[in-house]
Every structure is written in C-alpha cells, then in structure tokens.
C-alpha cells in the first residue's frame, strides 16, 4: 500500500467528516423514530471511513457517484447538511427540491456529484461515461464510483469493469463490502467472499482495504486516483466493513448475528480514528471535543433549517422534467 502523507489538519478534516456523518446519521434516526421523518432513509453506521476516506482522495475537478451509504462523501464534496436534511424532509430547499427521496438524487454537477439512482448499480456505467468524457476531452480528471457487495452480483458490475478495462478509463470503482445486501448475507450472494481479486479477469489492479481505517481507505483510493489520472487506467477497490444498523430505518436487522455486530463494534471507524489521533498526538481531547461540538451544532442547525423550510409548490410539479 502507498505511504500516507496527511498533514494534521487533513487528519482532523477526515475525523470531522466522519463524525459529522455519524452525528447526522444518529440525529436522523432519532428524528425518524419520533415520527418527524418523511418516507424511509438509510443507515450510515459503519460506512463513515469508506465514504470519507475515498471521497477525500479526489481532486476538486474529479467527479463521484456515491451510493446510499455515502453520506460522508456527499458532505465532504460540498453538499451542506442543510441541503441534505431538507431533502430528507422533502422540502423546497433540499438538493432535489422535494423531487427525490432520502439520499437518492443527491446530485449537484457543480460539485462533481451524480445523483444516486435506486436501480443498482446504475451509477457504475454513468461514472464510466464521465470518465470517458475526460479521455475524450483530454482532461486530467478521474471518476470515482461506489457500490455494494450486493450490487456486485448485478450484470452492470461486470459490464462496467470490462468496458473500463478495455478503454483504460480513469475510473476508480470502490465496493463497500458490508457483509450484507439488505437481509442477504455474503454467502448467499457469492461463493468467493473476496471481491478485489475479480479485477484480475479484467486485467486491472484490484485492492482490498480495511474499510474501517479511514487513512487506509484514503491511501488506496489516492493511489488509484493518481494512477487513473496518469493514464494508468481503472482500479477496483474493495473496502471491507460491516453495516452496523438495519438496511434502512424500518429494518431491525434481526437476521444479523449479534456476535458479528459486537465484533465489528470493536473496530468502529470513528472510535478507532479518535484513539489513533490522540495516541499519535495529532490532536488533544479538547480539539476533538470542539469538532464534536461543531458537528452537533451543524446538524442541529440543519434540522432546524429543514423543518422550517417551505414545502415545494405543487404548481411546480411538472417543471424541470426536461432541460430547456
């Protein structure tokens, strides 16, 4: 694996984005339990290091196609907690102005983000197309796409990797292997539980990484992004983690063995990184507390903003179907 050379302020940024994700997620779930949510929403717990570590490895002109567990990536790419929370509540001020639900559709091309589409894994060929537009225009830009272990069973996973390899596309495809697709465990999805080695049949690099180690995720993604930018073609990254809560807000995940969750809880990406930062002296407790406070304030502000935001105007329901 590549050497990580992160400055202290960058490390604190990683910590901040992970924690912001966590706080956002917790407050979101709490709100839903109080009946203040609209529709359903996806849990993020366990995915913070992946979404943040990988997203952080991109340059400002790169583009990303996150999935439904990548709140951290949306946030660090510049979608504010306000805009996202307002989207969750279907408000006019949300990213999609009430048109798409929860973390779907959170696209903002000015921030280089493609809106997520439910049909998995549609984002993959989309990201490849974006990558190919960079080749077409000789731009030194890279596309990063996220997907899940579940979606890796879909044909589009193969079609995308195959075309990316043939075309030597500047694409990084990251699989968040969280052991489950909804209620379906890995062994009912695939016979070989390692996904990174699939890269071999496409003739591209495939790298597995601890998905609960934010700096490791950052490092492998950074390396893959650099390779892609330099004309070295696509990389498949598999980040292993565990989905620590239900698939979505209504799901109690009774089908997950408690021992498994208990074991992974020991490896919580945020707790681990906090301990790491403290032990390395990158930050003291006061600094970390200040970050935590900042996250709390931001999320509270976002909720207040969202809840007091106007509903979309029903008269505008047919606007925007077509680009003018």
């Amino acid at each position: 694996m590549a050497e990580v050379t992160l400055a202290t302020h960058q490390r604190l940024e990683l910590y901040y984005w992970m924690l912001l994700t966590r706080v956002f997620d917790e407050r979101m779930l709490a709100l839903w339990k109080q009946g203040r949510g609209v529709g359903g929403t996806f849990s993020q717990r366990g995915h913070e290091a992946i979404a943040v570590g990988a997203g952080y490895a991109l340059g400002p002109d790169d583009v990303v196609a996150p999935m439904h567990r990548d709140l951290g990536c949306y946030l660090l790419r510049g979608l504010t907690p306000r805009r996202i929370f307002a989207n969750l509540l279907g408000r006019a001020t949300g990213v999609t102005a009430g048109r798409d639900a929860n973390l779907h559709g959170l696209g903002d091309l000015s921030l280089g983000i493609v809106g997520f589409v439910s049909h998995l894994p549609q984002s993959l060929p989309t990201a490849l197309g974006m990558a190919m537009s960079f080749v077409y225009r000789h731009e030194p830009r890279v596309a990063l796409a996220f997907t899940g272990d579940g979606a890796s069973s879909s044909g589009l996973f193969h079609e995308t990797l195959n075309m990316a390899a043939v075309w030597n596309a500047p694409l990084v495809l990251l699989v968040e292997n969280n052991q489950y697709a909804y209620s379906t465990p890995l062994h009912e999805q695939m016979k070989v539980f390692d996904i990174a080695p699939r890269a071999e049949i496409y003739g591209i690099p495939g790298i597995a990484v601890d998905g609960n180690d934010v700096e490791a995720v950052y490092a492998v993604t950074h390396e893959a992004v650099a390779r892609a930018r330099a004309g070295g073609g696509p990389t498949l990254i598999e980040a292993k983690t565990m989905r620590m809560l239900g698939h979505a807000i209504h799901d109690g995940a009774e089908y997950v063995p408690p021992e498994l969750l208990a074991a992974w809880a020991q490896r919580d990406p945020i707790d681990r990184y906090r301990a790491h930062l403290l032990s390395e002296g990158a930050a003291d407790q006061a600094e970390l507390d200040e970050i935590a406070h900042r996250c709390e304030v931001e999320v509270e502000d976002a909720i207040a903003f969202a809840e007091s935001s106007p509903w979309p105007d029903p008269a505008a329901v047919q606007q925007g179907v077509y680009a003018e």
Partner: protein
Amino acid sequence: MSATNFGFTDAPVEDGSRTITYIAAISEALRQEMRRDPDVLILGEDVGGEFGGAFKVTKGFEAEFGRNRVMNTPLAELGFTGVANGMALMGLRPVVEMQFADFISSAFDSIVQFAATAHYRFGGAVPWVIRAPCDGGIRSGPFHSQNPEAWFVHTPGLKVVAPATPADAKGLLIAAIRDHNPVIYFESKPLYRSLKGYVPAGEYVVPIGKANLVRAGEDLSIITYGAQVREALQAAARLAAQGISAEVLDLRSLKPLDTEAILATARKTGKVLVVHSANQLAGVGAEVAALIAAEAFEWLDGPVQRLGGLDTPIPFSPPLEDAYRPNAEKIYAAAQALAAF
C-alpha cells in the same frame, strides 16, 4: 392508517370467510398454493430466512417449505427472472418477488423477450408469476412508487393483473399461479395494511380476464383498477350524495382486458372516466378509452375522459406527490364535470 374496508361493499360472505388485510390475503394465497402444489416455489431478494421479504409477505415460509422452495437470490433481477424462465419451462411454477415493482425494469429482457415469446416460438410454456409491489402515495419517491403495467400490457404474450381488494388479491394470485403463462401480478403497496375485506378461506380463484362491477350506477362509469378502485368508490359515494349515480368497474385484469364488461358499462351510462395511478400518457387507460371510442361510439353522451398520473417522474415530497397522483377528490371533480357535460 388502520385497516378498514373503506367504501367497498363487502364481498359475499362465504363459509369460512374472514376479514383480513390485502397483504395477508397475498400471503395466504401463496401459502395455500405452495401446500397444494409441490411445483410452486418462490424466489427473489430477501424472501427467505426469518426475514421473509421487504414487506414480510413470505415471513415464515422458509421454515415451512425449506430453502429449496424459498430461494433468496443475489441482486440480479435480469438473471433470476431468467432463472424463473428456465424453471417454468421445466414445469415448475416459480413465483418471483420483485422487491418493488420499480425494479421490474431491471428484468425487462427476461420478461418481454424470452418469457413473452417462448410459447409462440417453440411451444415452451412459461408458467411463472411475478409479484410486483407497485404504486405510491406513501412518500417513497421516484423509484419505489412506480406503476409500470402499460409496458407489459403492450407486450404480446404476457398476462397482467392488478387486484384492488383482499379477496381479489387472493383469488387472482391463485389464478395467476395456476395459469400456464407468464403473469405479472401488480399488488398495490398502499393497500397492503390499510385495506381489509372478507376473504374466502379455502381455494378461491378469481378468473383472469374478468372485470368486476363493484358499484352499479346510471349516470356515468368510472373504470379503474388497483388502489384507485378504493378512491373511485369514495368519489362515487360523494357523487351519490350529489345525486350523481356513478358505476365503478374494477378491471382486475389488464391483459387480457375484459372488453365485454368495459363496453357494457360504457354503453349503459354513455359517459366514461378511466382512472389509474400510472401516468396517463400512453397508459393502460389510453387503450381502454380508445376501445370505448371505437366500439361504443354511438352510445357515448360525452367524451371519454381519463385521469392518471402526470407525465413526470413520481415526486417524493407530499405536496408534489399529491399533485402528481389521482385520488378520490380528483376523481370526484372529474366525474362531476363529466356528469355535467
């Protein structure tokens, strides 16, 4: 929402009938057919284990029927629907659960190119059922609210049904499982736990291809299906209070359509409003309206009207979704205008 039978006239109470929810009726039909016929099996995402599917329709099934008959599939709709094709060709009767009707588009080729043509081309019968939980009004956004029936009604070789009541949910599912052809069964999510009705306990088959006149009337006909039947009945009740007598025809079967029943009601009242949740443009309602316009022309006392969803993706936010979607209120207004024509 607690379950009620809303504006429905209760189905005739047969021996052993009980009042159960729409979703319970689906489960019951599946369980009965699996007990009756060892060739019936279930496959789909998350249908097995303790979990029993995103809507818990098959909860407890794996315990009763074993893993062989309740197969969890990887996320691969095109592939596992193709698997159902192969099983069905060999005489099994797979019931495929799409997690949401929206994802049926991912299985498109396996349905419209293979299953729909196999019998015509080489006599290969494909007796599967796809259960597709459809429709919205429950704030689930553009990808968990779709009503894609028109694509399949337009496709030769398929059958398409859409129950509106618990009894039909049971009877049409049993009919679909026993049919020797590929049948897409659109079950309306908004009715799952909010609609109760009498359901016969034993074997109960509602024949595919027969509409149901759920309310007789004189002044105009509302032709609809799925979750909009409930809305239409509510609208009809309000219209009655205004002295307007509306007939409500529940199509139940969208392919084949019950052209006889459609034309009978059109000829009787001379005024027709066709309603569905799917977007109106080139929807199933267009076929119904065109059929009436061609075959009941001389009986018409007013233009055949349609009321469907708008021609936009299905929006998430409550005010937008409400603007998008037909409901009792909008049906009432459209029917009133038509009656006044």
